[in-house]
Every structure is written in C-alpha cells, then in structure tokens.
C-alpha cells in the first residue's frame, strides 16, 4: 500500500492511484495533486484531484452499491467477514504442521452478489452490500475455485481429492461432475483457474485453456484448447509473460485461426512474482494483476491500444493462507480483491 498516512477509517485500507494515459504519471499537471500524500486528511489523489473516498455519493462503503453519479471512483470493502463457523463467518483451518487455509476463491455475479467459497465450512456464502443473503451447501471441503455459469448454476474446482469440476444448481445439488485429467491436463495440480463461457467450462493449464465441459455441463470429449484467456467478447486471446525485472508483456491476438499478435509492455512498481489475468472488461480495457515480491498486489489497467489507464495498489494479505483466486475483474471493469488477515477475510472493491 503506497500511502504515507494512516487513514482514520476502516475502509480506507487501500489507495488507488490513477495515471491517465500512457504518460499520465509523469506529465506536468495543473491539478491540485499528483499522489495521495499531496492531499489533506483522508483524501486520495485521483485524476489530479483530491477525492474523499467512498464515491462521494453519501453512502458508506458497505452500503455502496456502486452507483457513481458524480463520476468519482467508488472504492472500499464490499464485505468483511470474521473467522468462524456461524452464518456470515468464514472457515479457517490452521493446522500446527500444515497449510493455513481460509476461503480459497470468490466470484461476483452480474447483480453484484459476492459468492465466497467457504470450503472449510462446506458451503458458499453469498453476500450483497456486505450482508449475507444466502448460504449454499457444497459437497466437500477441498474445493479451490468457484465460477458462476450464466444460468445461475455454479462450477467448483477440486484438484486435490475429487480431481474434477463439479456443477451445482443454485441450491447446491450436484448436476454433473467432469474429471480434470485428460487431453490438455497432464497433471490435475497444474490447473490454475476455471473460466465459464456460454460454450462451456474451460480450465487453465497455463498458458492454455482447455474446454473440458460443454454448455450442458457434460464432459467435452474433444477438449479443444486455446492459448491464453478469452476477452469479454470472446474475440481476443490474451496471455502474459514475465521476461524479468519489473516488466510484464501482454500478448493479444485474435481468437480466430489467423491474425497477428500485439504485444504491450507493462512495468510494475515492484517485482512481479505471479500474474493474474490479463482480464478484459466490455469496453476492451485490459487488466493485468501481479503479486509483488515484497508483498502487495498491483493491477495495471490498459486501454485497448496499450496506453496505461490506471494503476491500482492493493495491500498484501497479512497471513500466509493458500488462496487460489485473489482477484476478479467484472465486465463493468470493477476490480475485486479477496484478502485475509488475522480477524477474517475481506473483499475489496475498486472501480477505476
């Protein structure tokens, strides 16, 4: 978190630094600020203006549904849930000699509901505006990823015990189960994500995506594969590499059979260890996240032409839980981060 002051409010736990345009960070500005610490009190510097966090719409962040009539960014915690077994709490496994484990993954629906995979308690907990709205049982405690299907059903990934993906209906009943092992998946432990599209479920074995289930939830014997992640509109395939140092390279190419490849270079402020994405929103912006070597998470948002639109610094997890998926970007371009600390789990929301 690159902020010099300690904000006075719980929900001011991160800063967002927007750098508009490719050279926006270094261009001379006639605005009132360049960085957060140029601003008074608890304000942040956003687009060269000091902004009171929370979107300026008068709501506190827990109740903030993302309306953004002023055009200011909406930032804050979408939910904070303590450790425990009760409804609204999230399970934590803390063995004396073993992996520390809290919620492994989360997903965000089109209506803004946050589905937290509370696998330790064998359930999914669904939150809206920070409040628990329902709980869905899941058949086991070893699931690692959750992906929402367009029809309201839910895909779960289990690499370690079931070695499969399981399709649940919205009540938690098993509709189908598809083995991970097979063409394109040489070892189930190498699967690094699930991605649901209208044509079925794809699993990532970096850098490839393999469609292992069709739209009905049945196994896809053909297992077609592509290299990279699909863009929101499905027309592009994107992947990223770490050539070294603080740089990453984003490769963008048409999803069709032919066409050239475009490479965008991204420079992080720290040294990236692990990448998340590249994801896209429906406007074509590209979002590349990175776990930084000294802790922390950076997200760089690119315009479709590769110019830097925004940079977002998110705080590191303060505990060593094994979290499978920590970042989501919605079709609207809203960034969500799942992180954990001593008191529980938090999902942060950033709307560039």
């Amino acid at each position, binding site marked *: 978190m690159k902020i010099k002051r300690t904000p006075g409010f719980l929900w001011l736990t991160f800063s967002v630094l927007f750098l508009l345009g490719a050279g926006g960070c270094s261009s001379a500005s006639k605005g009132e600020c360049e960085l957060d610490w140029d601003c008074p009190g608890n304000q942040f510097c956003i687009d060269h203006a000091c902004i009171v966090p929370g979107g300026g719409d008068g709501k506190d962040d827990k109740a903030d549904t993302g309306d953004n009539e002023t055009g200011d960014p909406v930032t804050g915690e979408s939910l904070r849930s303590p450790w425990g077994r009760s409804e609204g709490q999230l399970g934590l*496994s*803390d*063995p*004396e*000699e*073993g*992996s*520390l*484990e809290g919620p492994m993954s989360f997903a965000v629906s089109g209506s803004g509901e946050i589905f937290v995979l509370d696998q330790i308690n064998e359930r999914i907990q669904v939150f809206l505006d920070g409040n628990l709205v329902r709980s869905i049982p899941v058949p086991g*405690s*070893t699931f690692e990823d959750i992906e929402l299907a367009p029809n309201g059903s839910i895909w779960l990934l289990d*690499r*370690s*015990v079931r070695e499969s993906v399981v399709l649940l209906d919205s009540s938690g009943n098993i509709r189908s189960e598809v083995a991970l092992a097979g*063409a*394109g998946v040489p*070892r189930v*432990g*190498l*699967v*690094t*994500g699930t991605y649901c599209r209208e044509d079925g479920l794809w699993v*990532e074995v*970096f*850098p*490839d995506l393999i469609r292992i289930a069709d739209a009905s939830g049945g196994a896809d014997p*053909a*297992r*077609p*594969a*592509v*290299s990279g992640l699909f863009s929101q509109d499905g027309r592009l395939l994107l992947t*990223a*590499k*770490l050539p070294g140092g603080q740089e990453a390279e984003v490769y963008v*190419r048409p999803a069709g*059979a*032919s*066409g*050239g*490849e475009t490479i965008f270079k991204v420079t992080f402020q720290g040294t990236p*260890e*692990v*990448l998340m994405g590249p994801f896209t929103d429906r406007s074509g912006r590209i979002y590349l996240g990175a*776990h930084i*070597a*000294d*802790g922390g998470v950076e997200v760089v948002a690119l315009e479709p032409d590769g110019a830097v639109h925004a940079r977002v610094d998110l705080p*590191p*997890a303060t*505990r*060593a*839980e*094994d*979290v*499978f*998926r*920590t970042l989501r970007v919605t079709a609207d371009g809203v960034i969500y981060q799942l992180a954990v600390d001593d008191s529980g789990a938090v999902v942060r929301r950033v709307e560039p």
Partner: protein
Amino acid sequence: MKTHVLSIVAWLVAFPTLTWADPPQMTRAEIIDLAESGVGYSYWWGHGCWREDGEQTGSCSGSCPSCTHSGSYGADCSGFASKVWQVPEASDVTVNQHPYSTWHFYNESTHWYRIERSELQEGDALVRRNASGGHIIIFASKNERGYQVYECNSCRRGCIFQTRTTLGSEYVAIRRRDIGNQEICDDQEDNDGDGKIDCDDPDCECDQCQGEEIHCGDVVHGTNAGGTNNIDMYPGCSEWDESGPEKIYVLRNAGPCHVYATLEVEGDEADLDIFALENTCSPDACKESGDTQAYFGVDPAKVYYIVIDGYAGDTGNFTLTIECND
C-alpha cells in the same frame, strides 16, 4: 506422565548416542524423485513414511493435531520434507521418521540454509513458522501463474503436487546442504560423473522438440546455423539426407484449419527444407514436407512442430510464414 517417561526410556534405548549419520549427498533430481513418490499419500500428523509403489495410501479425517489417521503410511509437511531431503540421515521412504518440525526448518541451519526466494531451484523448500504452527513445501518450478510444489498439505488434501497461485511473504526459502553436482544438459560435459553426457544422461530427459512458439499469421526470420542436429531423415515424408541442424517452431491451438507454412531461404545458397510433425518431434511423425512449403490440416487438440532442417548438412538464414485458413 508415566507414559511419557516410558517413551523417553524407549527412545534412549533405541538411540543411546542420540547422534545421526551425516545426510547423503543428493542431486536435485533425486530430491524431486523422492517428492514425487510421496504424492497421493495421506496426511499423517507427526509422521513421515510412504511406499514407492504408491500402495496403501491411508486416510486422514478431522482437524489436526486432533485428527484420526488410518493406515501405516503418510506424512505431515515436515515429515515429508525431512524424508525428501534425507535429513538428518539417509532413510528408506518406508521407514517412519519425523526428525524435524517446521520450527527446526525455519530456525535451524545444520543441514540447510536460507536463500532468497528469487534464487529458488528445484528441490529447495519454502517454510513459514509462527507461534501457532507452520508449513513447509518442496519447490519444483515456477511460472507466471505460481509455484509448482510438492507438499503434505493438510488432513483434508493429503500429499499433493500443485501450482500454488499465491505464496505469502511469510514463506522463506531454504536450501539443503550437500546437493551434489547435477548434469547440465547442454554443456558437453559429464557434470555428475556418471559417464554420460548431456542428453545421453537419463537425468536430462531432453526434449528435442523444444522450439519457439509460433502462431497463425506470424512471419519469422531465423537460422538453423548453430543449432543441433538430432534428425537425419524423416521416414514418414522423405528419404532426403537432412544431416544439418534443425530449427524447430511449435504451433499450438491453431485449428481447426489448414496451415500453409512457407519457407524462403535468404540468398538461395543454403538448401533448407521444411517438415511438419504432428504431436511429437519424432521424424516418424512427419505429416508433410517440402523444399519451400508444407500444407497440412490442423487438429486443434494436437501440437505441431514445424522443423526447418538443412539438406546434406546445410545451414542458412530463412523467413518462415505461417498462414492459416479455415
């Protein structure tokens, strides 16, 4: 208390000197082989043993340390790491031992030492430890998505190989002492002293298909000069003498489509040929070949190796164009 005292007495009888032999020298490949042999076994808190045949994996239930284990084989994270590293001394994987906890791996340095995470190599380990407990994992490799590791993860998950997409900064990297020389597979030397050099050494598992990724629409400039000659003839396609070095490109996920791979030799002095191999770079897998062009259908589930080879030992620069049509 009585049970506790008896345990101590039994320990002293069994190990009267309380000393260990030195750990054996190990190569990184040996460390990984041992780790691989433990995958699939159950988490067994306070223990460390398994079978090389993968049988009798056991099971674990509950929340450790108050968990229940059934069977005679399994390991917790530190028992697994101790066995894989063969510390403090050599021991068969079937021999149940648990000489160290994560506290030892985190705080001691007799048989290992700390390194930077950026220095990690296969067979090193990552350990965290605090007042309530800790965890240790054996590092295998890393890519843009995370760390590929071996670990006895937990009672629920057991001993697994997986990519960890996050690894908190609490984890510090440690390296076993006495890691022997390992064969370096491309230096024409017998590094590990077994009399076998580079790809002739089984430790290397050379993939002669390694090549540059290429995609539909690409136009690449390259040369086969300075490369290695592994293929002299492609029986599936021709009987030409292709004793020159190969330059290999890898085409993945391109279909379904037809590929026109066109080779243009710069200067027309060298006699280079083009070969398309399906799914493996065995010359027997040759699907299409030509002096200047190879045209072939693509199955999206398969990988294609486009090899530029030198006729009768020739080398030269070239331009390769990949066009794909439905």
